[in-house]
C-alpha cells in the first residue's frame, strides 16, 4: 500500500530493484515482479538523487537549482512521480512523526 507523500517524507530507491544509466535516461528492473521501467532525463536525475535516503524537500530544492521551472508545478510533478515510483515498489517511503 503506497504511503502518503509530503515534502517531509524520506524517500530512497527500494532494495528490490536494479537500475542503470541508459544514454542519460534510467532503466530500472523491479526484481520481484520482473517488470522494466524507464525514466526520461529529468526522471533519471530524480532517480540518481534517490540512491540515498533524502527528504522530498531536499530533492525538490536540488532540482529547482538545476532546472528553470515553476516551483509549484515542479513540486506537484515531483510528488506525482514519487507516488508512481512508490506504487510500483521502486522506492521506499518513510514518514517521520511530527
Amino acid at each position: 500500500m503506497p504511503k502518503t507523500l509530503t515534502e517531509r517524507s524520506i524517500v530512497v530507491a527500494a532494495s528490490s530493484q536494479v537500475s542503470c544509466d541508459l544514454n542519460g535516461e534510467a532503466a530500472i528492473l523491479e526484481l520481484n515482479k520482473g517488470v522494466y521501467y524507464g525514466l526520461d532525463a529529468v526522471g533519471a536525475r530524480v532517480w540518481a538523487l534517490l540512491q540515498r535516503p533524502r527528504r522530498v524537500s531536499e530533492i525538490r530544492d536540488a532540482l529547482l537549482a538545476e532546472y528553470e521551472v515553476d516551483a509549484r508545478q515542479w513540486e506537484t510533478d515531483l510528488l506525482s512521480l514519487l507516488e508512481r515510483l512508490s506504487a510500483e515498489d521502486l522506492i521506499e517511503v518513510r514518514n517521520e512523526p511530527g
Partner: protein
Amino acid sequence: MSLVRRRASAEETPAEWELLAACGYAHRRDSGREKIKQLLQTAIVWERFCAAAERHKLEALVFRNLASTALDKVPAEIASRLESAARRAVQRGLLYTGRFLELAKLFESAGIAAIPYKGPVLGALAYGNCSLRSFQDLDFVLPQSQIVKASELLVQQGFRAYPDPTCAEQARFLRHFHPGQYVFVCDSKPPQIELHTERTLRYLPVPLDWKAVAPRLAEVSVSGRIVRTFSLEDTLVLLSVHGTKHFWERLSWVCDIAELIQAPAGVDWELGHELAKQAGCRRIWLLSLVLANRLLEAPLPGIVQDWIGSDDHVEAMARTIGRRLASGGGLPGAPQRLLFRLQSHERLCTGLSQCWRTATSPTEDDWQMCSLPEWATPLYFAVRPWRLLRQHGLGLRRKAA
C-alpha cells in the same frame, strides 16, 4: 615513374571494423567522436557492421556512442535495429545484475568467499555503468577448499551442476583432476553461473595466491550495492590471461582492458607490472595493454610504453591479433594457436610447460567422453591428448569461423 607497394586486400581494414573500434569506448574522448563522424562519411556496409557489433558483444556501447555523436547519419532502419539490440542487452544486463546481487548475498550469508569478476562487477569497475558491458554468465572465483560447500548451496537453490562435486561418481574424478570451471544452470534462473578456483584457472602460469590477493580486494558499487572484487591491477592480470586464452577473438575483451586502464581509481602501474611478473604472465599482460592502446587508443603512460618497447614479440603479436579481428577471422588453426601460446611467454621453457600442462591435464570433457574405473584413473592423462587430437586433428586445415 614510381612503384607503389599496396597491402593485399585481405589485410585492408574495412570501414565497418574501424567504426566498430571507434565506438568501443565508454570514457568520453573528443577524438573518438571526431573519428566516428569521419567514418560515418565513408561507405559503411551496415549489415556487416551490425553483425560485427553483435559478434563482439558491443551493441550497448555502439548505440550509445552513435546516439551521442551522429545518429542522424545512420540509416533510420539500422539506428532502430541498433537501439533495439542495445535495449535488449541492457534489459538482460539488469536481469542478470539482479541475479548476481542475489547470489553475492547468498554466498556471503553462507560464509563463502566468492569473489565476483567480469559480469556486472567489471561493468561497474571499468565502465562505471553496468549497462555498457554485455555479459552472458556470472563468474565467481573462490578457494578450492570451498567449492563443495558452494556447489551444495547452488544445488539447493535448484541449479544443476556440471561437473558436480556433490555427486559421488563425479567427485571420484574431481579428487584427482580439476575441471576448466564448475558450471551451474537453472532453466528458470538464467544466466549460467561459473565458479572458478585457483585450480581451475589453469591458464594462470602461477596459481592464484589467496593470501596475497585478499588484502588488495577493492569495493565497487553495483546498482547502489557495495561489492568486493579484485583490485584494478589484479583484474587486469586475470583479464589479460582470459583474453589470451581465447586468442582475443572478441573486441569487447579489449574494450574491458581499455576501460580498466582509464578507470577513475587509476591503475598503479608498478604494482600491476609486479603482479604480472609474479603471476608468470608479464608478456600476456603487456599484450593486453598494447591491444587496448593500438586498437582502441587507450592511453598508456611512458613507463608502460618502455616495457612494451623492450619486448621483442608483443607488438608483432598484437598486430597479428588486430589483423585477424579486422578481417573477421575466427580462431586461428592449431599450429598458429600453438605458436601463439608459446610466444605468450617470455621464456620458451615456460611456454612449453604451459602447453604441456594444458594438453595433458584432464578436464570434465575427458571424463564425459570416457568414464574410467578408479584403478584406471592415470589413463586420463592419455585420454586428453587423444581427445584433443580427435577434436582438432593436427589442425592443418583452418576451422570455419
